[in-house]
């Protein structure tokens, strides 16, 4: 798992692991890491069989990865990126152009909503990275919200789904912040596996995830995740992210 969900509660992960173990008839253990890169490293080292990562690393490594499923959020396998700020009287940020000379918090260098979208919007606003006073990575969307709420940063880029879930769960962090901009729809962070992985674990895992809305415990787990279910999605769902990555590569000269 990565920070694509608010899944850092050990009790919930244990309960979800037992559910999937029963469905797959084999032990299922969740490993959580703050960094997307750490999870990818484990996956590519074949220490993981499946990983829930952001769409941006999937696009970067789509030739080595295969899509297992993507969550349904508000009835679609897509989400948005938000630009949040603290109280405007303090931050003075109402949009991307106001970030000049400000401190901006990102989520992760491999996060679409928490970094890649921001790079595109900053470019559109005509702001180079040097125009900002400082930027830093908070290693999760939740931490970005806390950084903005505590005024460590004037603004932050977060996953819209994570933000909305925090609001829904009544967490205090969104109260001290506000959304000043939201992006278009992008493909929801997918569950992926190595394309050359052996066995039928991918199919069995998809079947278990797809069937969650069909039983009471699965519904409770989905409710805790603030999701509607899991569906099979095509690679084209992530074309938007793919375009952002390509544009960023063109601006910086770095590979996608």
């Amino acid at each position, binding site marked *: 798992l990565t920070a694509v969900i608010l899944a850092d509660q050990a009790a919930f992960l244990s309960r979800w692991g037992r559910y999937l173990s029963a469905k797959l008839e084999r032990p299922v253990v969740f490993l959580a890491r703050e960094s997307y890169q750490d999870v990818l490293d484990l996956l590519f080292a074949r220490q993981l069989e499946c990983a829930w990562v952001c769409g941006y690393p999937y696009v970067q490594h789509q030739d080595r990865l295969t899509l297992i499923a993507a969550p349904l959020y508000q009835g679609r396998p897509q989400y948005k990126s938000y630009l949040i700020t603290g109280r405007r009287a303090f931050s003075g940020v109402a949009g991307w152009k106001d970030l000049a000379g400000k*401190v901006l918090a990102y989520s992760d260098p491999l996060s679409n909503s928490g970094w890649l979208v921001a790079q595109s919007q900053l470019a559109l606003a005509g702001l180079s990275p040097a125009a900002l*006073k*400082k930027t*830093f*990575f908070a*290693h999760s969307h939740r931490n970005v919200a806390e*950084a903005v709420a*505590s005024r460590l*940063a004037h603004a932050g880029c977060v996953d819209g789904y994570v933000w909305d879930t925090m609001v829904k769960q009544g967490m205090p962090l969104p109260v001290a912040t506000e959304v000043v901009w939201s992006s278009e729809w992008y493909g929801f962070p997918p569950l992926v596996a190595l394309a050359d992985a052996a066995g039928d674990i991918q199919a069995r895992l998809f079947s278990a995830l797809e069937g969650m809305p069909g039983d009471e415990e699965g519904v409770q787990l989905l409710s805790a995740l603030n999701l509607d279910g899991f569906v099979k999605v095509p690679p084209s769902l992530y074309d938007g992210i793919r375009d952002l990555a390509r544009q960023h590569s063109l601006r910086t000269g770095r590979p996608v």
Partner: protein
Amino acid sequence: MLHKLPYRLQVPLGLALAVLITAFLVMVVSAQISVHSAKRATLATVNRAVVLLVAQSRPLISADDTWRIYTLLRDTAALLPGVDAGHSRLAVLDQSYRVMASSHPAQLETGRKVAEGDRVPGDEASTPMLGAGTLQWVVPVRSDDGQVLGHLWVEIDGAAFEPVWLAVAQPALLGGALAVFLLLPAGWWVGQRMALPVARIADCIGKIGHSREPLLCEQLPRTEAPELWRIGDAVRRLIAETEQRRKAEDRALSAERLAAVGRLTAAVAHEINNPLAGLLTTTQTMRLHGEDGFQRLKSLDLMERGLRQIQTTVAALLPQARLADRVLTCTDLDDVVSLAQGTARSLNVHCEAKCRCLGPLHVPSAAIRQVMLNLLLNAIKAAGPDGWVRAALCAGGDRFSFHIANSGSLLTPQRLEELIESESGPDPRGFGLWVCRQLAIQAGGGFGTADTSPCGQDDPWGAEPMPRTDFTHLVFWVHNKEEWA
């Protein structure tokens, strides 16, 4: 105010007050010590936190990981005093003293330059720099090869220690309250115990002279305190001495009463003895010359008047039997001389008496006869063998006087006063002289020595003038008024 209270209240109140003051001072001092100790402990904790933060922030500064620096500072700031009230702050600065992250971004925002660039990185001491009530640490964070990567900034406002003062003062307040709760009644009890013997001694002193000695001695407290024991012993001696003095006074009063009875008896005997001696002389005269009718009648008259004098004297002692007295006449002077003649002849003393009355007499006969007889007999005795005695009765206007002189040793005014004052002494003249003085004073007159001739210009002794300083001359005088009689 306190000094006006009774001693039995002063001592316990004073002790109670001393307990309160002591408890207050101990409370203040212990609170001060506790505050200083707490401040030192807090500063030691801060120093340890600084060491920890320097070590932990080094890799984070190298990685420029603002978020993890922030979480490190945020979590460590809980060790600082007053952090909840915003009185303490932590920050990690980059090499140019800009804030990479702070525990309180609202106060030390990210990217803010908190110090001017004239500081040489690496030169700051790790000891706090004392600002205006604010403690500040700026500690360099170095790489393994000594390169300054950044700085740790610690800032604690002076107000951060005020809540510590209040918190630490609470045990001192509790201790003071406990001390007062325990020591105040104890102080009161000890004070009462100390003052009680003193109060009882004071009561005993107040009762001296009004209560009996055994009761007072029983009320005196028995104490082992040296000072109180000495006071009690002194009071006990005072009580004993007072009791002894009272008994001595009682004995003296009894003796005085007995002496008064004795004097009264002697006076009566003296007053009666003189006329009796005269009567005996008269009876001797009758026995020798009784055949002569004139002499017999004269002796009988003399005996009657002598007996009347005795009757009057005795009646004076019995108020219910007082008799009416007659007025003195010159004949009474002759009677007195006749009564004393026997004594004069036995001593071969020449007696001579003169009466010079220029008007009627109003003085009583009994008292004046007594005075004249007393003075005449005293003068005969004072003149001694072969001496002489001269008497003169003078009356004129409102003054009556009786003069008596003798050839004995000179009686000066001082000597006369000594005799009168020592009327209880061995000198037989003392009592008679004292009676004369008292009679004269009660009648508004006087009695003493005289340095002038009797009866003024008509000196009855003028035929044979004598040096006035060579003989004793006494005068008894009273007012010659009818009401006197």
